[in-house]
C-alpha cells in the first residue's frame, strides 16, 4: 500500500477542516444554548418544540382571556355588592314606612329618599366596565342596557339576555345576564304569590283586610293542576269560599272548591299552602294565590313602593298590605341579586383555578420545549472539550508526521 503524498495532504487538511467545523458548530450551540439550531438536527424534536411553542402561546392567550373575564367579573361582583347595600337601605326605608304613626307627609319624604336610591340602583345596573361594555349587558344591548320608560312599563332591558363567553378553551363569562339578575326574581314567596285583588262587588281595591306572603305546608300538594290559581273570596265578613281559577284566562268563571269561616289572623290552608288574612274583610273581597313566576323586576317593586307611599289617604290595611308585599318583593329581588353574586363569585373562583391551570400548562409547555431544543450544558461542555482536544491532537500529529520525510535525512 502506498500513500500518495498529495492525497495524504488533502485528506489531512479535510480532516482538520471537518474538525474545525464541528468545533465551531458546537461553539454556536454553546453560545446560543440550543441543541436544535436547524430542524434537521433532530426533526422529531423540532416538531415537538413547534407544538410546545404553540401550546405556550395558547396558554398565554387563554390567560389573557381569563384576565379579561376577571376584570369584568370582579367589577360585576363589586357592582352586585353595591346593589345589595342599596337594597338593604331601601328595605330599611320600607320597614320604616310601615310605622303606623307616620303621616302621609312623612311617607312622602321617605318616598323621596327612595327615588334617590332607585336612581343609584339603576346606575349600578347600567354600570360599564370602563371600556365600552356593560357589566349586565347580556349577549349585547343598547347603551346602556336598562332603560327607564314611563309607567306602566317601568325599567326595561333593551338587549339580548344571556351572557358572552371567552373562547371554548376557558369559556368564562365576559358579561352577566342582567335580565336574570335584575328583572327575573321570583314573584311572591318563591313558590306562590298572594295578592290583594279587588272587591268583586264594588270593583274597588280592598281596604279593610290584608293578606300575608304565606308559607308552604305540604310541598307535594302544591298546585295539582297546571295553570290554576286559587282565590279566597269572602262571601260575608266572616265566611269565605276557596275558588280555583285559570291563571292564563282570568275571565273564565271560577269554580268554588270549599268554604270556610273567617277569623282575623287565623291561617287559611289550601292545597299545601297556608295564608293569613288579617283585618275586617267586606263581602266580595278577593285575595288571589297563584304560582310564582320569575318575572319580578326590582325596579317595578321600588316604583310600586314609591307610588304607594306617595298615595294619600290609604287605610291602615292597605298600608300593611303594601309594606308586606314590597318587603317580600325586595327580599326576593335581593335573593336574585345574591344568586347572581354567588354565580359571579363562582366564576371568580373558576378564574383563579384556570389561572393556576394555565400556569401549570405553560410551564409544562416550556419544559417540553426546553427538553426538545435546549442544550444539556455540562454534556455539551465536556463534548466541546473533547473536540478541542481532538483538534489539538490532529494538529500536532499533522505537524509531526509531515516533518517525517526521507528528504530530511538525505539533505546532507
Amino acid at each position, binding site marked *: 500500500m502506498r500513500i500518495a*503524498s498529495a492525497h495524504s495532504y488533502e485528506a489531512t487538511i479535510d480532516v482538520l477542516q471537518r474538525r474545525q467545523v464541528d468545533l465551531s458548530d458546537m461553539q454556536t450551540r454553546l453560545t446560543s444554548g440550543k441543541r436544535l439550531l*436547524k430542524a*434537521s438536527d433532530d426533526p422529531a424534536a423540532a*416538531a415537538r418544540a413547534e407544538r410546545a411553542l404553540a401550546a405556550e402561546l*395558547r396558554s398565554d392567550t387563554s390567560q389573557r382571556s381569563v384576565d379579561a373575564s376577571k376584570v369584568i367579573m370582579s367589577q360585576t361582583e363589586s357592582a352586585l355588592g353595591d346593589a345589595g347595600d342599596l337594597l338593604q337601605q331601601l328595605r330599611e326605608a320600607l320597614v320604616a314606612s310601615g310605622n303606623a304613626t307616620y303621616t302621609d307627609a312623612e311617607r312622602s319624604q321617605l318616598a323621596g329618599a327612595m327615588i334617590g336610591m332607585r336612581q343609584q340602583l339603576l346606575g349600578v345596573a347600567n354600570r360599564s366596565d370602563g371600556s365600552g361594555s356593560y357589566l349586565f349587558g347580556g349577549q349585547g344591548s343598547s347603551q346602556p342596557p336598562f332603560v327607564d320608560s314611563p309607567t306602566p312599563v317601568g325599567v326595561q332591558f333593551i338587549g339580548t339576555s344571556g351572557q*358572552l363567553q371567552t373562547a371554548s378553551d376557558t369559556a368564562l363569562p365576559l358579561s352577566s345576564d342582567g335580565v336574570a339578575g335584575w328583572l327575573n326574581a321570583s314573584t311572591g314567596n318563591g313558590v306562590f304569590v298572594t295578592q290583594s285583588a279587588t272587591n268583586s262587588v264594588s270593583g274597588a281595591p280592598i281596604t279593610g283586610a290584608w293578606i300575608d306572603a304565606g308559607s308552604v305546608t305540604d310541598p307535594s300538594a302544591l298546585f295539582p293542576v297546571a295553570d290554576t290559581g286559587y282565590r279566597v273570596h269572602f262571601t260575608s265578613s266572616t265566611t269565605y269560599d276557596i275558588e280555583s281559577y285559570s291563571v292564563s284566562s282570568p275571565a273564565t268563571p271560577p269554580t268554588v272548591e270549599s268554604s270556610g269561616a273567617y277569623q282575623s289572623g287565623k291561617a287559611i290552608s289550601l292545597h299545601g299552602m297556608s295564608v293569613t288574612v288579617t283585618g275586617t274583610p267586606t263581602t266580595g273581597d278577593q285575595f288571589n294565590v297563584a304560582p310564582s313566576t320569575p318575572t319580578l323586576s326590582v325596579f317595578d317593586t321600588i316604583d310600586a313602593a314609591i307610588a304607594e307611599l306617595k298615595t294619600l289617604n290609604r287605610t291602615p290595611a292597605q298600608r300593611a298590605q303594601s309594606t308586606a308585599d314590597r318587603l317580600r318583593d325586595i327580599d326576593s329581588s335581593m335573593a336574585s341579586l345574591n344568586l347572581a353574586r354567588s354565580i359571579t363569585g363562582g366564576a371568580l373562583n373558576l378564574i383563579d383555578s384556570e389561572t393556576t391551570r394555565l400556569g401549570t400548562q405553560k410551564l409544562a409547555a416550556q419544559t417540553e420545549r426546553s427538553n426538545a431544543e435546549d442544550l444539556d450544558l455540562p454534556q455539551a461542555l465536556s463534548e466541546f472539550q473533547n473536540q478541542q482536544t481532538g483538534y489539538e491532537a490532529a494538529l500536532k500529529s499533522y505537524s509531526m508526521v509531515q516533518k517525517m520525510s526521507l528528504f530530511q535525512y538525505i539533505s546532507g
Partner: protein
Amino acid sequence: MGTGALMSLGTRAMAASYAQLQTTSNNIANVNTKGYSRQEVQLATAGGQFTGAGFFGRGVDVTSVTRAHDEFLTREASLSSALAAADTARSDQLLRLEKIFGTGESGLGYATNQMFNAFADVASKPQDLSSRQVVLSRAGELAARFTTAGQQIDELQTGVTGDLQAAVSQINDLTSRIAVLNQKIVDGRGSGQPPNDLLDQRDTAVQDLSKLMQVSTIGAEDGSVSVFMGAGQALVLGTRTTSMVAMRDPYDNSRVTLGIATEAGNRALPTSLLTGGSVAGLMRFQSTDITDARNLLGQMALAVGLQVNEQQSLGLDLNGQTGAAMFRFGPVSGLPVLAANPSSANGGSAAISLTLQPPAALTAAGVSSVQASDYRITADGLGGFELARLKGGEIDPEFAAQSVLNGDVVDGFAISISGTAAAGDTFLLRPAGSAARNMQLNMTNPKLLAAASPLSATTGSMNTGTGEVGAIHYDSTDVAAYANLPATLKFQATAVAGQYTYTWTDSTGTRVPNTWSPGQPIVYPGTTPTNSFSVQINGVPTAADSSASPAVSSDTFVFGANAYPGSDNRNANALLALRDNPLVGAIWSGGTLQQGANVTDAFAGIVASIGVRVQSARSAAELSTGVAADAELARSSKSGVNLDEEAARLIQYQQTYQAAAKMLQVAQTVFDTLLQTAGR
C-alpha cells in the same frame, strides 16, 4: 572481447539510470499535479552476446515509460464521486431550503398561532379597535411570511436553474475536451509508446465529467474512449460529441429539463437516465424537494386563508355587515382561480383553469381538501380528460387516475375546461403551488373583522331544565335568508321515557315534531336548503308533558337575528377555534373523512419532514462522500506519488548512476593499463 563492451555497458547503464532519475524527478515535480499518474521507466536487459563461454549480458535497455494506472480503480473512483456529487448537491440545496422553514419565533407556525390567538383579545373586547388592529397586523405579518417563504423558494429555483445551465455548459466543455484528447491519443499511439500525460488528462476530464453527471466509458481498439450518459445516450463517440442543452420545462419556464441537441432539434431526456453527478442531485431537488416545499407551504397558506375567509363570511362586522375576506391569493379577492400550465407541446386550443373551493363546501360534498401535490390532465382528443396526481414529478400510485369533466371538483378545486384539446395534450395543475407566494392581506379596516354571529339564542327565563344552547352552525349571514325568525324551539316528552321530540315555531307556524337524541344537532329548516341552521343543545331541557300531574310546559329557546353585533364575540371565538380545525390536507375516501392536521401540527409536520429530508440527504452525502474518498484513496495509492518513495528511488538511481560511472572509470583504467603495457 574488448574494453568497448565494458564502455558500452557503462554508458547504457548510465543512460538508464539517468532516465530513471529523470522520471523520478518528474514524479517529484508533479506530486501536486491533479490527475497525474506516477510514471516508471521500464527496463529490459539488452540481450546476450554469445561466445564459446556462453552468453554475456550486453547491459540494460530503456524500453518505455509507463504510468501507474488501474482501469478498475479509476472507474470506481469516478463512479463513487458521481454519486457523492449528486448527494452533496442535493444536501447543500436542502440546507438552504430548510432555512425557509424556520422554527420557533421566526417560523411560520409561530406567526399563524399569533394571528389566531389575537382573535382571543377581540373576543374579550369585540368593540375595541386596537385589539382588532392587532389581528390585522398579525395577519399581515403572516401573509408577508408566507410570501417571503414563497419568494425564497422561487429564488432557490432560480439558483438551481442557473446551476444546471452552468453545469450543462461545463459538461459540453468536458465532452469536447475528451474528444480532442481522443484524437491526440490516437495520433500519439502511432509512435508505439503510451502518451501518458494525454491519458492522464483524459482520465481527469472523465472524472470531472462524472462529478457533474454520471457517465460510463468504453475503450476502443485505437485508444480512444466513448462516453455514455447513464445507460445509453452517447456523449462522446471517438472524436465526435453530442451537446447537451438545458431546456425550459414544457410546463414551467422557470424550471429546466435536460436535453440533447440533435439535427432535428433539441430532444428532452428522461430524468431516469440521470443516476449520479451534481446535475442529478439538482434535478432531483428541483422535481421533488422544491415542488413538495412549495405545495406544503401553499397547502398551509390556503388552509389558513380560506378558512379564515369562510369564517369571516359567517359573521357580522362592526358595521353589521357580512364579514369580508381577510386574505386573498393573487391580485383579486374571492376564491383563487388558477390557470393550469399547458405543455408547450400541446396542439389543441383547450385551456384549463382551477377554482379553489371553500372548505365548508368541500366538507359538505365529501371532497378532500387541497393536497400538497401537483396534478396532470391528459386529453384523449375526444373530449375526455384524465387526471393523475403527481409525486416527485411522477404519477402517484396511491391516487387512481380518474376521468374528469368540466366543472368536476377534485381535491379542493373545481376544474373548468374550455376550448378543444388534441389527443395527448397535457396540462400541469398546481392548486397549492403558488398560494404561499400570492397570499396577501385583503383588509385594512379593523372594523371589518367579523367578530359577531348573525344569530343569537336566548334561553327562556321560565326554563327549569339544564339545557343550554351550545353552538349554532349556519351557512349564511344573510338575515333575509332567515326571514321567518325569531324561531322558538320547544321539546315534548313522548310515550317512551327519556325520549323527546322537538318543534320549531316561527312566523310560519309550528313545524312537524322531530325526534331528538341528546348531542345531535337540531336543524332549523330554512326557506331554502341553503339557509337552514343547526343548533347544539347541551344539558337536558325540560320537555312539555301534558300527561304529568300537573302538566309540565316545555323549556324554550328562542333564535333570532343578532340585534347587537357590536358587542358580540361568538364569531371571534369561532375564528379563534380555527386554530384547532383539522382541515389541512383532510382526505375523503370512500365516504369517510381522514382528518387533516390543524395548523400547528401541519407546520410541525412540514418542519419535521423537511428536517428528515435534510438529515437523510446529509447522511447519504456523508456516506457516499466517504465511499468516494475510499475509492480515491485506493486509486491514488496506485497512481499517486509518494515523496518518500521517490526520495528512496532518487538515492537508488543515484547510486546506480554512480556505479555505472564507476564502470566507465574501470573501463578506462583497464584501457589505460592495456595502453601502458602495449606502450613499453
